[in-house]
């Protein structure tokens, strides 16, 4: 199981703030998680493609496609930040 969190525009687009999913045996990186989510189609396919401006964090640190994912991780997807 991993925890998935969505923020701001992505939270609205997906219609949910978080979910818990079981990691398939061949999903070992952040890119694997993204591919799996994009395969849901609809807003998931639209928002989580390479051309879109989104960011991801693994266990609350900014992560990239090759960041390893393991059971128990907290994985977040969100738009570029606009604080301050």
């Amino acid at each position, binding site marked *: 199981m991993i925890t998935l*969190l969505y*923020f*701001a*525009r992505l939270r609205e687009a997906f219609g949910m703030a978080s979910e818990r999913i079981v990691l398939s045996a061949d999903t070992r990186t952040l890119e694997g998680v993204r591919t799996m989510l994009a395969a849901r189609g609809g807003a998931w396919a639209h928002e989580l493609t390479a051309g879109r*401006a989104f960011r991801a*964090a693994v266990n*609350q*640190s*900014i992560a990239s496609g090759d960041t390893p994912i393991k059971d128990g991780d907290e994985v*977040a997807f*969100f*738009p*570029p*930040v*606009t*604080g*301050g």
Partner: protein
Amino acid sequence: MAVRVQAEDFDVSAEIATLRKDNPRIGAIASFIGVVRDLNEGDSVAEMTLEHYPGMTEKSVEEIIMQARGSWQVMDALVIHRIGTLKPLDQIVLVVVTSAHRGDAFAACEFIMDFLKTRAPFWKKEQTGKGARWVDARAADDAAAERWQKQGE
């Protein structure tokens, strides 16, 4: 070092007094306050809502402050970032840095502020005359943060 994410407003005089802790080695206090403007990208803004990523916000801002401490002589630093619904003229963010000397205080304060704009997980949704919209990250902000990385290389 203190990082606070809160809905409540803040008072810069009171925060500076707390941060100084009557330390007589402090000679310089640089501070920055960000406030809500009534205009963004040419549209009038009635109000905005600030959302954040609890946990990661505090962690990333603490890391930013540690990085500032590594680059400049910093006595102490405070970051307050508000969340929730804010209106034009409302204070959004406060950064205060104390140091023995002004050059370090200014540089560390601006460094922390630039990273808050580009790295800390906050998102703004504006209510404008044309409806609600999420604010896009500005290229100028990314450039400001990148400047620091280049200097550090």
